């Protein structure tokens, strides 16, 4: 496949799966300090964290790209960094939003201001920006994180709409921040019927946005639904995937997803491609999400 990626502020370049270096040419690795940590309980659910870090040296990034973070101390037990979508960047800080899901994120949740982390990024491919087109954002749970930066940097917020499905209390997520900038609806899933209603709403919105751009981030079953609906209605959709990864730079081959027909520059059809390098954002028709 080919699509336009933002190489710098005024330079664009066509790339394919084999030319992964293009987007990540600006990546760097270094140690930065934690500047802030806000944690939220969600009752019986997982804890949520907003982690603020000293802004790294790099300045060119694209919403949808991610960073790898690894606490420096007391972490010999856990060898891998953890991948996090860039939530937003200011002149001084890089903000990440995550929920505790396993040992790595639990360790991350213990970070306090002044602690040092190793950080490398920005990594992978980000979301397309087509500012003149109607843009539908579909987020499931923690998948809302990259859309904060996306909406903040988008030149035409009036063209965007967010449908957000969540299980934990709405206060756990940066939803109100987004709802202040664009049209946004939250769908609280407490039972099967809620989920059905959310999917019906997504179907209607996807149909309406057939000539626009659809961006989705969330758990794999949610992405599978968006993929199926988008392909069914011939809508152009990008999906941001989550995957278990060790390196984040394309070397460990742990995070791969099977490619689909539209993915070009692969040795054989269906070739497994690295989520960290060819993604995490893929066009819906580039990947096969079936197990």
């Amino acid at each position, binding site marked *: 496949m080919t699509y336009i990626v933002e190489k710098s502020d005024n330079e664009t370049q066509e790339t394919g799966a084999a030319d992964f270096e293009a987007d990540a040419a600006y990546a760097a690795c270094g140690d930065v300090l934690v500047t802030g940590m806000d944690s939220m309980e969600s009752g019986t659910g997982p804890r949520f964290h907003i982690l603020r870090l000293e802004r790294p040296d790099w300045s060119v990034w694209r919403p949808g790209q991610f960073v790898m973070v690894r606490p420096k101390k007391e972490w010999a037990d856990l060898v891998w960094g953890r991948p996090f979508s860039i939530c937003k960047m200011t002149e001084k800080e890089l903000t990440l939003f995550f929920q505790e899901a396993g040992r790595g994120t639990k360790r991350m949740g213990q970070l306090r201001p002044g602690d040092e982390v190793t950080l490398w990024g920005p990594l992978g491919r980000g979301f397309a920006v087509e500012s003149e087109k109607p843009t539908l954002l579909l987020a499931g749970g923690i998948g809302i994180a990259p859309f904060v930066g996306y909406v903040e940097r988008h030149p035409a917020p009036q063209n965007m709409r967010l449908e957000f499905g969540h299980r934990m209390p709405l206060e756990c997520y940066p939803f109100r921040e987004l709802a202040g900038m664009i049209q946004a609806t939250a769908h609280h899933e407490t039972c099967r019927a809620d989920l059905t209603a959310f999917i019906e709403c997504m179907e209607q919105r996807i149909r309406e946005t057939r000539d626009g751009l659809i961006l989705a981030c969330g758990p794999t079953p949610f992405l599978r639904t968006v993929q199926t609906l988008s392909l069914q209605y011939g809508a152009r959709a990008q999906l941001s995937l989550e995957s278990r990864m060790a390196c984040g730079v394309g070397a460990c081959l742990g995070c791969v997803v099977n490619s689909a027909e539209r993915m070009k520059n692969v*040795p054989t059809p269906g070739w*497994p491609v690295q989520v960290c390098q060819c993604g995490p954002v893929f066009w819906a028709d580039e990947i096969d999400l079936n197990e």
Partner: protein
Amino acid sequence: MNSTAPCLTVKLPGLTLKNPILTASGTFGYGLEFARYGDLAALGGLIVKGLSLKPRVGNPCPRIAETPCGMLNAIGLQNTGVEEFLRKKLPRLPWRETAVIANLYAQSAEEFASLADILSLEPGIAALEVNISCPNVRKGGAAFGQDPAAAALATEAVAARARDKTVIVKLSPNVTDICAIAKAVENAGAHVLSCINTLTGMAVDLESRKPLLANIIGGLSGPAIKPVALRCVWQVSRAVSIPVIGLGGIASARDALEFILAGASAVQIGTANFIRPDAAFQIVDALPRVMRELDIPDIESFRGTLKA
């Protein structure tokens, strides 16, 4: 304290390295993935992801699992094949400045010979590392590495077609007597040995009652295996008269020097490249300083000086 710059040069049969720090196959991609985190030419050498004659898609996911102080992998040698590597990747690597070493994977002695034949014609390839120890593929791989006669067969096949290239054979620790394999491979024409590949292991999830890897069994790497690797390097370097390259859990310049003290001529940085992508470059930078602190004037005279 010795104030002059320590000598880092390592001489191997047919191959001189500017320093003893190499990157291990399977942990450093094709090298290019790491070019933005450091100067590839500053490394003693880089050993690329295992190459087969034809592209291989590898194993299903999940392929990796984090374990205490280490990780398991069962990638299954996914690679684009030797031709694609030579056409698209090798020309972009700084092979004039540093040793680019190809890692060979095959399922038969004939395939090993064909691979060696293709790769030994390449001026950009400094040496061939023969993988007779991958635990994650059904055919070939460890099947060659677990039997002295089979290991010798694979080694002979490569050595016969290696032309002027140095032949390195990467040994498996998953054997009763690693020294017996080492000697068989030495007699079959290996110039250098790499010790060790991953240890076979597994991890399970008690809640889902499923294995953490789709392949169930995988290869354990990282700091967790360092004592095993050090033991293998110690034993093998005393059992053979050819040089040994040590690897297994090396994550710092001090770790690297421990392996050299135990008998290794050079080392490979593996899983540490995942801990942070500039790990190998940082180790190259730190090595002269640590050597000065420890009063080590040069790598070659320090090698194997363990007081045991």
